[in-house]
């Protein structure tokens, strides 16, 4: 009898579970923000109806857009409605040169005080500079006038206890030697971008009003402008491999979809072997995450992975995210953050949506293979970057045979603020796509010349392959910041997602279960998955608690939940008449996931930070399997067909990260965490426990951001990931099946730099050693699977190299506007991938490049994908198939592949106004 889990053993287990992990943090040292400078000012008219005998002061928070216009105006400090209205009316007519960061215009929120001295009173003497403003040069302001507040920039001290989530960067516009803010509380000037460790940073902070930092106004008729970058400060990284890809990296090389943009992250390789309507296939750090089984995808925090999807666990269709509205992507490799939930096995990827360039944009793209795309986008000026709407339609005949596609997408987001520190965001999206699919080909058939590389089998079963997707989604997020620095989050999301595909991988192997006399009618597997679901996220983060000078702590408690009703079916169809000749799956699943997490952050001085906590998720499934307990025709019926069952389980684990900053430009990280992936519900039996896959993730690394003249950031880390039960795609079933426990270990190195102001360089190398640590699970077909200790996991590329270059330069001035040139290139290298049975695929080299010229409101460009015109396989497989191409069918696994696109060239015309 196996030993029981005695209480003593439980205690020991609990103790053993307290392992510290260090995570590397990636702190992008962003350049300083230059404040906007007013070029046109209008005086405020004194509201005589509300005249007062004392000076009245109104402080406005004014958003200055990238075009220098005044956007949102809110009242930070009110002097009554009349004075507020007068000040607002005046400031709305002001014009500025926009704030810049690193040379590029950014929207900024500035604080503009208006002082209304009493009528006929003496001008008030200049108020003394408050003592908490460190002695920094105050640039000379323009001459004071009684009712004209003159904005001048002066540094204002950030109050360490300030709960400002947004980076606050008062930057005197004419002091070029503005020091980059450091992490210490004594820094006089917090910069706009660096996640200042002293300030609590909410992980998904959006635009927040800058609370008063206690800066006092300068002399009464001189305003004090605090500048804060408008928008989101990247959340502090949890591990060395926590990368935030900003717009300059994302947009350097050309991309056709938001999935393509993921390749910028170290260790990520993305392909589309199943056409344009099926989700991308993603590899991350030794994981073949298929369509998302190992990566938690979120859009603005709302989860995208679909639970128990028939085509693949955690199926995440990113095709509805238009690449033009993605402001940044956060790729967290590893599981070290208690916020990471289901499917965060290799890591998490969060898309942050926002449009920096305001106005209207029309972009037409056309080129190879009859591809045409029309995008329309509008981002109202003066509004937050997070308010935008975009729509696109795309059509293509596809390269090779049977790959035509048509899709339409609409996506919009609206950000708003409310009184008392409330901010919110509402997001809606809709997407529909249908594309043909050429499927896979056997290598031996292509080598023998029986079928072309970009063709499909001439068989009707191969010609009928297609996929279609439809989606409607909405999300709401509300955050509230209290004066004490706490932050409360409420977010809810709901989506209806539909998937319908027909794929034939294996040719003519299958026999009908319902009518066993029917065989050899073609293995065209039809899969339908319709998912109506929603969920919420609630959390509260306290303000900072500082019992001592060298210690600060904050705690976040939160809960997230999802509930999905999934209706799925799988049939076999006979092409071309679309006759159903077998039922394989017919089920309804109600899947619920309720999670609870706690995230504690402790800071010891300026050198050490410990972040971590734990997360527990309760998973529950109610499965109505209409074909369960199936009665084959040759069996005497002893019951009715149908098997309904329920299963639950708990996935709980710690996630800890330790960051040590021995030098201001060097951070070291160690991290450990446990993640999980929910199972395919139909594979559960009644009451079966452990309905999920557990992963243990560990990492150590460093991040260097030396304070050189040009920004440089270098990250290096070593990592290990251990899975109790891994999944791999089984083409015969058309879905994922278990392959046994695995271990992945490796190193990653990433460099991001801007050697010259016009050149952006980002490169990374990832190495992984991925092995199967125990024999694969026995099946009834193979009770003793062959296994060699340490055998490599097939299909995962051991080495992934990525290089992105972006050149952006003004060439010549034509009239009032410069003629700007942009060049971009992205290079991908994948080493030879191991395949089952000791084989390996060829290495992969891909180069994409783009060039464009922009003048004023028009931009012309050209994009080339696979510029080296390499003939490559987007995906390779090894399985048994029979397409009738040999006289006797083979039952040995053979190599198959799905072709990657050849050279394609697209021209773009962009109008922005």
């Amino acid at each position, binding site marked *: 009898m196996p030993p029981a889990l005695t209480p003593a053993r439980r205690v020991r287990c609990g103790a053993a579970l307290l392992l510290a992990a260090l995570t590397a943090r990636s702190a992008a040292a962003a350049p300083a923000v230059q404040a906007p400078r007013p070029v046109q000012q209008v005086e405020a008219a004194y509201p005589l109806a509300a005249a007062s005998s004392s000076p009245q002061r109104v402080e406005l928070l004014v958003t200055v857009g990238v075009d220098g216009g005044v956007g949102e105006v809110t009242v930070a400090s009110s002097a009554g409605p009349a004075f507020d209205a007068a000040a607002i009316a005046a400031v709305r007519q002001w014009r500025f040169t926009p704030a810049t960061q690193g040379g590029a215009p950014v929207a900024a929120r500035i604080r503009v005080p208006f002082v209304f001295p009493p009528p006929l009173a003496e001008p008030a003497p200049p108020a003394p500079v408050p003592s908490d403003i460190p002695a920094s040069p105050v640039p000379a302001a323009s001459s004071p006038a009684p009712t004209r507040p003159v904005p001048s920039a002066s540094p204002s001290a950030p109050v360490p206890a300030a709960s400002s989530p947004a980076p606050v960067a008062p930057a005197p516009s004419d002091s070029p030697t503005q020091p980059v803010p450091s992490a210490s509380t004594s820094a006089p000037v917090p910069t706009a971008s660096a996640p200042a460790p002293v300030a609590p940073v909410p992980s998904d902070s959006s635009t927040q009003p800058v609370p008063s930092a206690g800066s006092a106004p300068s002399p009464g008729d001189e305003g004090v402008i605090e500048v804060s970058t408008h928008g989101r400060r990247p959340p502090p990284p949890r591990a060395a491999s926590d990368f935030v890809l900003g717009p300059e990296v994302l947009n350097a090389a050309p991309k056709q979809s938001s999935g393509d943009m993921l390749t910028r992250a170290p260790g990520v390789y993305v392909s589309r072997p199943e056409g344009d309507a099926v989700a991308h296939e993603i590899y991350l750090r030794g994981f073949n995450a298929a369509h998302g089984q190992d990566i938690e995808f979120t859009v603005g925090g709302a989860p995208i992975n679909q639970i128990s999807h028939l085509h693949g666990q955690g199926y995440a269709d990113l095709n509805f995210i238009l690449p033009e509205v993605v402001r940044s992507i956060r790729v967290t490799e590893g599981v070290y953050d208690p916020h990471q939930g289901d499917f965060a096995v290799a890591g998490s990827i969060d898309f942050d949506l926002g449009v920096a360039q305001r106005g209207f944009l029309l972009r037409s793209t056309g080129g190879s293979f009859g591809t045409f795309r029309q995008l329309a986008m509008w981002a109202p000026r003066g509004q937050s970057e997070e308010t935008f709407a975009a729509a696109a339609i795309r059509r293509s005949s596809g390269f090779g045979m049977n790959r035509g596609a048509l899709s339409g997408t609409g996506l919009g987001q609206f950000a708003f603020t409310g009184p008392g520190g409330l901010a919110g965001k509402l997001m809606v999206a809709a997407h529909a796509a249908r594309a043909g699919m050429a499927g896979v080909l056997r290598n031996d058939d292509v080598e023998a010349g029986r079928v072309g590389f970009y063709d499909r089998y001439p068989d009707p079963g191969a010609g009928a392959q297609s996929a279609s997707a439809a989606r409607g989604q909405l999300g709401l997020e509300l955050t509230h910041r209290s004066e004490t620095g706490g932050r409360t989050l409420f977010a809810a999301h709901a989506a209806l997602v539909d998937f319908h595909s027909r794929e034939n991988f294996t040719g003519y192997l299958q026999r009908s279960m319902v009518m066993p006399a029917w065989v050899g009618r073609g293995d065209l597997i039809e899969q339908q998955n319709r998912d109506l679901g929603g969920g919420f996220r609630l959390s509260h983060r306290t303000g900072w608690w500082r019992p001592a000078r060298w210690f600060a702590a904050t705690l976040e408690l939160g809960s997230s939940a999802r509930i999905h009703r999934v209706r799925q079916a799988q049939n076999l169809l006979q092409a071309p008449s679309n006759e159903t000749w077998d039922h394989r799956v017919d089920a309804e699943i109600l899947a619920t996931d309720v999670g609870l997490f706690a995230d504690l952050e402790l800071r010891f001085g300026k050198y050490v930070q410990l972040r971590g906590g734990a997360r527990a998720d309760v998973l529950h499934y109610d499965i109505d399997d209409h074909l369960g307990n199936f009665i084959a025709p040759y069996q005497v019926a002893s019951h009715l067909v149908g098997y309904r069952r329920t299963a639950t389980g708990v996935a709980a684990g710690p996630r800890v990260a330790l960051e040590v900053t021995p030098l201001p430009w060097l951070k070291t990280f160690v991290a450990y965490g446990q993640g999980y992936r929910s199972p395919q519900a139909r594979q559960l039996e009644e009451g079966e426990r452990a309905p999920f896959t557990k992963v243990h993730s560990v990492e150590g690394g460093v991040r260097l951001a030396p304070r050189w003249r040009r920004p440089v950031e270098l990250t290096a880390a070593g990592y290990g990931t251990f899975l109790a039960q891994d999944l791999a795609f089984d083409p015969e079933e058309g879905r994922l099946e278990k392959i046994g426990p695995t271990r992945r270990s490796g190193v990653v190195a990433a460099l991001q730099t801007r050697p010259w102001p016009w050149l952006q360089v980002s490169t990374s190398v990832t190495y992984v050693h991925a092995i199967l640590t125990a024999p694969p699970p026995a099946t009834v077909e193979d009770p003793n699977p062959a296994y060699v200790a340490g055998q490599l996991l097939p299909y995962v590329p051991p*080495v992934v190299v990525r290089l992105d270059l972006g050149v952006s330069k003004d060439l010549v001035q034509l009239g009032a506007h410069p003629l700007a040139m942009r060049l971009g290139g992205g290079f991908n290298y994948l080493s030879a991938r191991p395949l089952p049975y000791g084989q390996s695929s060829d290495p992969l080299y891909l180069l994409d490049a783009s060039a464009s010229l922009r003048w004023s409101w028009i931009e012309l460009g050209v994009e080339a994908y696979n510029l080296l015109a390499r003939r490559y396989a987007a995906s390779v497989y090894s399985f048994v198939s029979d397409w009738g191409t040999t006289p006797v069918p083979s039952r040995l696994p053979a190599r198959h592949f799905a072709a990657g696109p050849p050279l394609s060239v697209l021209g773009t015309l962009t109008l922005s106004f």
Partner: protein
Amino acid sequence: MRERSQPGLRDSDRGRFKLRERSQPGPRDSKRRCLLAAVLLLACGSSGGEPFSYPLAAVGAGAGPFPVGDWQVTLTRAEVAIGPIYLCATAAASPDLCDVALGEFTEVAVVDALAPVAEIGELHARPGEPRSAMLDYGISWFTTQSRPEALATLGHSARLTGTAVRDGASLSFDALVDVVPPLRGSPALVGVRAHSEFQDEGSRLELRLDPRAWLTGVDFDALAASGLVHSINPGDPAHAAIAFAMTTQPPSFRWTHD
């Protein structure tokens, strides 16, 4: 007998995987190799054993006379079409349980079953422990065919020619035998016992064919009652006896390894 199912032998058999690991290069060697591979950014190790081929041969029973009831039967010709053959990891080889084979011979060979040894060809295989086989005698019914078809040049599963002698009476026969798969998409013979602990490039598989055993069910008395020269074809009772015997007494599989 599968040893694993005997509790008494369980522990020794449990070391099966460990035995395999010992034959791999030692841990220090592989670590060094891995380190070098990591430096060169290459994959280290392999994803399992590579596919390989090894020879397939047929072993006949010899040409001497043998008794069937009162008769002494001598075969002068015994041509047997054999193939395609699939080796399976399950003990019940059938299309349902052997989607992926451990080895296969995807041709049809016509073998002289009287000759001592005849090389048939190469068996393509991958690492594993075959425990049963499914095969055809030259007539196959694949999933995509609407009726069975003979693949062999022989046109039939077997041609057995010979004489039967009893008390001076001599009867000659010429049998064309068809063993037809009864089910579309399934070979004619399923679940044929064929076990080897392992297979690799140094292996060799011999199929032992005994056409004498296939004739023991033939009623020569009944044949003799209607003549001395017989052409036995599908539909005759003698044909049914031979085809039945070919089905229930399949070739035996014997492996040898270097």
